[in-house]
């Protein structure tokens, strides 16, 4: 076995059996397979159990504010489009606190990958309902069960403009790794909704519960671009939960639209000499 180049001196602090372990493994496998130089990877983390990954992942890391990973990720990508930028977020972080950023990032289609750790609860604050929690689910903040209908992250992403969407399951690491790899390769805004049990605060959605419901789908390249069909698949969540690549199409990215970025990272561009600018004529 190859040495794990991503390990740091810090050991994971997630609960034993947490779905985050599978996601972490899948991400490392995908990055290893892609062979991107470690220094060219930037992972921006939200705040939640998922975000704690920063301390045991040896790449350039940014641990931002709760909900704000995506604007930071976009700023990094717009300053240096050569970097591989990945946002690691949770269902609460990405769709609760950061919902506005999520839909606007999808709309702009920056070439970044968003990995949504989706376990229906806020784990780090000890088990309140998240925006993906199913109706009726009893949590610390919903003692008589969730009453507001949930989001499905990928359908929301596709609707808002994401050009790649997939759903995976942390209990199937090779398959999830393949989805993450495809998302990173995709040129555009890619969302991977990652189903994971919270073994501490959610006794309903166990590994077994997911295994009974997930169904791998294999959609042809042409059909993947059909937004309506993709949204329908992505919204399907209940007795059957389709997993796999759900949407994929090619559009100009946010960075493509910045002509100046064709010359490379902003840090390499010279400072303009202000007193010779043509635009000064408007002040005369």
């Amino acid at each position, binding site marked *: 076995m190859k040495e794990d180049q991503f390990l740091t001196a810090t050991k994971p602090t997630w609960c034993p059996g947490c779905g985050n372990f599978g996601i972490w493994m899948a991400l490392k496998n995908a990055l290893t397979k892609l062979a991107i130089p470690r220094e060219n990877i930037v992972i921006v983390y939200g705040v939640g159990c998922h975000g704690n990954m920063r301390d045991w992942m040896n790449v350039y890391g940014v641990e931002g504010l709760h909900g704000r990973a995506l*604007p930071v990720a976009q700023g*990094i990508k*717009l300053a240096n489009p050569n970097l591989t930028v990945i946002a690691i977020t949770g269902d609460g972080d990405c769709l609760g606190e950061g919902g506005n*950023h999520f839909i606007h990032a999808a709309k702009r289609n920056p070439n970044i990958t968003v990995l949504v750790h989706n376990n229906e609860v806020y784990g780090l604050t000890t088990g309140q309902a998240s925006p993906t929690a199913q109706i009726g689910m009893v949590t610390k903040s919903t003692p008589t069960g969730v009453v507001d209908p949930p989001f499905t992250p990928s359908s929301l992403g596709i609707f808002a403009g994401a050009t790649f969407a997939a759903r995976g399951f942390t209990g199937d690491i090779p398959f999830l790794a393949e989805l993450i790899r495809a998302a990173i390769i995709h040129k555009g805004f890619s969302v991977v909704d990652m189903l994971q049990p919270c073994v501490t605060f959610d006794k309903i959605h166990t590994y077994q519960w997911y295994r009974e419901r997930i169904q791998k789908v294999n959609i042809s390249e042409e059909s993947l671009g059909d937004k309506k069909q993709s949204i329908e698949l992505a919204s399907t969540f209940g007795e059957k939960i389709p997993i796999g690549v759900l949407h994929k199409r090619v559009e100009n990215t946010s960075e493509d639209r910045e002509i100046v970025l064709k010359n490379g990272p902003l*840090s390499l561009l010279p400072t303009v000499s202000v007193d010779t600018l043509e635009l000064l004529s408007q002040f005369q």
Partner: protein
Amino acid sequence: MKTDITWAIGGEAGFGIMSSGTMLAKTFSRAGYGVIASNEYPSLIRGGHNFVSVRITTATVHAPKKSIHILIALNKETIDLHKSDLDLNAYVVYDEKDYAWKQEEFNHPITLISIPFSELLKQKNGDAVMRNTIALGVSMFLLGKDISLLTHVIQDQFKGKGEAIVTENIDIATLGYTYVKDHFEALHDQNISEGIIKEPQLVMNASEAVALGSLAGGMKFAAIYPMTPINALIPLFADHATELGIVYKQPEDEIAGINMAIGASLAGARSMVATSGGGFALMVEAVSMAGVMEVPVVIDLGMRPGPATGMPTWTEQGELHMVLHAGHGEFPRIILAPGDVEESYTLAKTAFDLAEQFQTPIFLLTDKYINETLWQLPREVLKTQTKGEIHADTDALPFKRYDRSTQSGISKRSFPGQKDHEYIANSYEHDEYGYTTEESGMRKTMVEKRLYKMKAIQAIIPPPTVYGEENADITFVAFGSLKGVVLDAMQTVKETGIKVKLIHFSWVYPMVEETIKQLLEKEKRLISIEQNATGQLASLIREATGVTIAEKWLKYDGRQWTTEEIIERAKGMK
């Protein structure tokens, strides 16, 4: 012949009031005069009263004046609202079809000049919105200047719209000029002597100067959500992004804006945001993040009257305390408050170097008055700029992003892409590599590391600028945009035999205790003059130095202190 004239134009929004003020200011700036143009308008796009005044002087000018020598009224309301501001024997240009004004309706003698705006426009098939162009032609005659000074500006202003538009505008301006010359030939009371300024000047507002200063400071990334009064920054960046070699992004909200700027900064681009109080309130959590991550970021905050949405198109200096304390936790910051357009340029430029040097948020505290007033900027000033370099670590490995061994608290940065320099920019408390820590010793060390920078900052902070006479009877203390009006008023106050001085802060925070204490304590009578209701500068001075400024002149009606108000109050003290 006069040496100091205030010309003003008012009318309904949508009738080119603002642009005629700009054109007249440029016309006289090019001809060697001092000009300053300030506006007043409600938060509406169409309808409502718009008003611009341009003060024209034969030498350099610091501030507008309230007293009007020539008033162009494109509707009746303009005269209703401003007749109390008319100077003795002022010229009032209007159309008697709007309302047949009589001398008796004014407090003192004035000269009524009725111009048949609509009739004249009909002759040339001109649109009603071109009444302002007639008014400009009329004004050139009344000021005793040749129409060609104006037509050159029209030519440059409209050349992008084609020859036909240029000709039409020149024809219509000339029509106004000829009409008033033919019918009011004897009127020469408001003629102005020759301007004596030789150095080439540009005419712009502080937002535009901040934009140019930022570019000179190596700014490469700006994320700005629109908000009055900093909107003038946006087209400058957005229209010219390619020429300037920058990325301008309109974010979905101010929270996204500052987080994007922080992201860009982490990736090696000098970056900024601009907003007003409400937008800044949304940014505050990220300001704290920039503090703990030690990320350079420049924040231009254009103040306007709050609380909440307040009065969006009016002015105030009510956010000094907010900026001083914005962001949870303790971390260093610098607050700069430019007093005019030249300082807006130089301090914006400096802000980016300071951000790079100290790796912490740097504030430019501007306001509506300075951001939307048109000032002159000597073109020569634009020659000063920085290299805009970013500094990456090249020391021996392992790389410690937050190396605590430095005396200054400043540790070297690295940027993604740089091999073996990976670290975590962490909003949690962290160790020297950026890894999360809650260990008591490390926490204490890191708090101290960040705050050491405050000492390093204090060492480079220049003292406030002192203007005026020694042994002053009264000493004004002010920050930011009050500089111009106080300097202007001081000229007149001095003539009344009162010795007067101004201690002006454009480097507002941090304050260097001993320097400022010494400066203030030797003064006979200190007056803090501010554009807010609570005396925020005076209270900062007291906190930082222990010096109490008991006398405070505070204005918080949304209107900038005027030269006249200061003079009157100062005279009353004799």
